[in-house]
């Protein structure tokens, strides 16, 4: 067995299971992860929860279960039943990075057996029921058209693979945008002297499905006087590929993003998608080399806006007469980076918003990258639990900062037949709010 110290890490390399030998040892099997793991709440089997997955990893290292293609189907199923949300690590007394360990196992299995082996076919084993309960299948007819325009390497293709379109049919997809974000905006907008130079990392969902969120983001940055770059060479952050265990694709995407952003020499790389931030801001750190250098510049927009004094400027606006009750959903990839307060401060400062805290705000929405495709039943159950909190707090809108969460929340709210909508925080910025950002 190799220890973390023995395995020499080459820059840009993905970690392998042996790199986690010490981390796996740190698990004392207390079971505390049951309180945090969304997959546990959906199945309540030991293999659902982090403790079980870490035990699978330990058994693999100890030679008690096969490796790679030889891994027992039951173990593969457990490894596929993970949203990689990191909630367990957040609640773990010993900080065991289960999502990273799961990622390493998925890469190991996928490298030997092909991608489809990870996670597919599990629904049948668990006795899947149809999830078509009053679902509006709005996206189904449009999805193939939309997919033609999306590049092969995009994470959207992994989230909504064409050969599994029936699943797409159950999800509420936004209407495909006529023009993607890059067709709408220039690559560089000059700002005011002395103001930060920033690049916007848009990510697939904002580029192809929600370009209006990207436009809002760029407008906010421009109003703040920043010089804004939107390099066309940028690609997918790699999170869906990571979730599928496609290590080589993650590497290719990371290289492309390094080429697109490194020469710009900006102060910050801004993300408006929590998952993308988790990819280029967090996962790239573990890769070392250039991706890690890039990762250090990545800032979530909520953190950037709070530091730029946006909360104070918004709070100085007169409160709107007609306000909406809005609650906040913590995307896993913000929560796990400790970004809890900034979005709440922004929401509370918006003149048209009455912010209410919902119960279970930090509970996962159930999307989990490719999880919702391969485990739609569990994903639906996790989503059901999520909307209970929304309903109880009486909000008219759920705001969040991850397009993936918006999509999943919309689906869950619709299934529950609640008259509540999910929105990206930036969609709540209207003309008055924008005007407040510019220097007098």
């Amino acid at each position, binding site marked *: 067995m190799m220890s973390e110290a023995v395995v020499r890490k080459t820059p840009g390399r993905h970690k392998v299971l042996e790199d986690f030998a010490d981390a796996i040892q740190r698990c004392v099997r*207390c079971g*505390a*992860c*049951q309180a945090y793991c969304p997959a546990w709440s959906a199945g*309540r*089997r030991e*293999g659902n929860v982090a403790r079980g997955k870490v035990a699978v990893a330990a058994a693999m290292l100890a030679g*008690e279960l096969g490796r790679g293609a030889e891994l027992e189907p*039951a173990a593969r199923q*457990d490894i596929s039943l993970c949203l990689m949300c990191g909630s367990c690590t957040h609640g773990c007394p010993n900080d065991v990075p289960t999502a990273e360990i799961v990622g390493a196992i998925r890469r190991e299995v996928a490298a030997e057996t092909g991608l489809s082996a990870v996670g597919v076919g599990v629904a049948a084993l668990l006795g899947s029921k149809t999830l078509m309960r009053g679902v509006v299948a709005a996206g189904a007819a449009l999805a193939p058209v939309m997919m033609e325009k999306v590049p092969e390497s995009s994470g959207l293709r992994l989230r909504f693979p064409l050969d599994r379109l029936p699943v797409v049919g159950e999800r509420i997809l936004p209407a495909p945008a006529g023009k993607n974000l890059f067709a709408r905006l220039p690559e560089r907008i000059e700002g005011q002297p002395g103001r930060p130079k920033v690049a916007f990392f848009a990510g697939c969902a904002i580029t192809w499905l929600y370009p209006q969120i990207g436009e809002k983001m760029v407008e906010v940055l421009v109003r703040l006087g920043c010089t804004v770059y939107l390099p066309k060479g940028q690609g997918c952050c790699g999170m869906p590929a990571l979730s599928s265990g496609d290590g080589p694709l993650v590497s290719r995407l990371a290289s492309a993003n390094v080429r697109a952003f490194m020469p710009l020499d900006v102060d910050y790389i801004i993300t408006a998608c929590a998952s993308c931030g988790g990819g280029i801001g967090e996962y790239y750190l573990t890769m070392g080399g250039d991706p890690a250098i890039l990762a250090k510049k990545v800032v979530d927009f909520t953190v950037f806006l709070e530091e730029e004094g946006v909360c104070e400027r918004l709070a100085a606006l007169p409160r709107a007469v007609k306000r909406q009750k809005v609650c906040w959903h913590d995307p896993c990839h913000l929560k796990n980076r400790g970004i809890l307060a900034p979005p709440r401060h922004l929401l509370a400062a918006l003149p048209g918003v009455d912010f209410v805290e919902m119960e279970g705000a930090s509970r996962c929405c159930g999307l989990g990258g490719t999880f919702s495709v391969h485990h739609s039943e569990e994903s639906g159950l996790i989503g059901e639990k999520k909307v209970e909190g929304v309903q109880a707090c009486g909000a008219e809108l759920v705001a969040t900062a991850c397009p993936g969460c918006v999509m999943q929340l919309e689906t869950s709210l619709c299934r529950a037949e609640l008259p509540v909508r999910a929105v990206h925080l930036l969609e709540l910025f209207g003309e008055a709010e924008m005007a407040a950002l510019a220097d007098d």
Partner: protein
Amino acid sequence: MSGLERRLTALVGRDRVTTAKTDRLLYGFDAGRGRFLPEAVVYAESAEEVAAVMRLAGELKVPVVPRGAGSGLTGGALAVHGGIILSLARMNRILEIDTENLLAVVQPGVVTAELQARVEKLGLFYPPDPASKEFSTLGGNVAECAGGPRCVKYGSTRDYVLGLEVVTPAGEIIHTGGRTLKNVVGFDLTRLFVGCEGTLGIATEITLRLLPKPEAKKTMLLFFSSIDGAAESVSAIIGARIIPATLEFMDRATLACLRGRTEIDLPEDCGAALIIEVDGRREWLDGEVARVMAVVAGRDVIGSVVAETAEESERIWQMRRAVSPAVRAQAPDRFNEDIVVPRSKIPQMIRRLEALSAESGIPIVNFGHAGDGNIHVYILTDLCEAGMEARVDALIEQVFAAAVELRGSISGEHGVGLAKARYLAMELSPETIAYMRTLKRALDPDDILNPGKIFLRGPDDE
């Protein structure tokens, strides 16, 4: 498919039985030490299924080990003699909350904290609060008679169980107690099953007594220069007829582990700390705080914090919750023993533990629910060191001997299970053990239900 798997599948269906190597490995452990692989794992969803599995196991003479969250510390959920792990985690519905009679009816897989959150919204209160309450199940709490910090005022799980639906080792479904506070018809079987560690029956429905939720609480953190000052304060507070909701103790070694892990400033020369929380009517609490302060005055108190807001109180409890992980990080191997002594004996027990640590040269960290006499004794060691295992065994035996000598017990809340079976005779007389074993043998002659727990296998097992 093995014969056992085929028979189980016929009872509960294909998707709730597994014999895969992976699942046997994953259900081979709990939160304590030791690993034993079962032959099969079954996920039950009703009392009838549990009963059917018991009848089949009796017919095939295969052991059955019930399991909730697998968060026990003494091996209660381990398949020591193989057989079937029967998971009750999916039986997790709160069936009823009766706000007129102040009771709740739950399935065994309901998580303790979930019930608490639900009843507190209705102004009610389920006090038992084991440290694992966020993930432990009520079925497990009943089987182990779980405790927690609030026991000092509110008692442990046994004080809240009014009635049970139980599947017997023979696979029959029986009912004990009921929905009334009083009931003296027949033996008090409810009390027999609470704390039986799943050896006499499997609770499939639990009726719990609830209390009105206390209106308010106030938290104090007291620092002492000497451990004697803190230990004597515990006895003095109880002696002064003050029963706080919680009365937690931390010794010097515990505080040393906590430095850098809490927002609270720990005085440099601090030898021990107490966290005291009083609850009840709001207007009554300031007077209660003053009474506590008057009792501890002059007992080496070198600092105190009285939380005025919920946030300040939360900071104090965050410090308490940081103890276990902080202590665990100190050594590769840890033994967490939950001895309990009469409350007036706390100062003596603490002095005895300090002496034992010094004599053995093995670090011991002491903290816990001092208000009810329950001290968590953490022995920190590295079993890789030559001869260490024998030294630790000897030390644990001395710790238990000290507790029993002071008329306490070797376990306040974790149970005997596998881990403490060999020490049973230190506390119980041969006649008492024989009485218990007669009961077990009469109800479960083939030793089907959770064998190898509480009692060591001995001649009368043959």
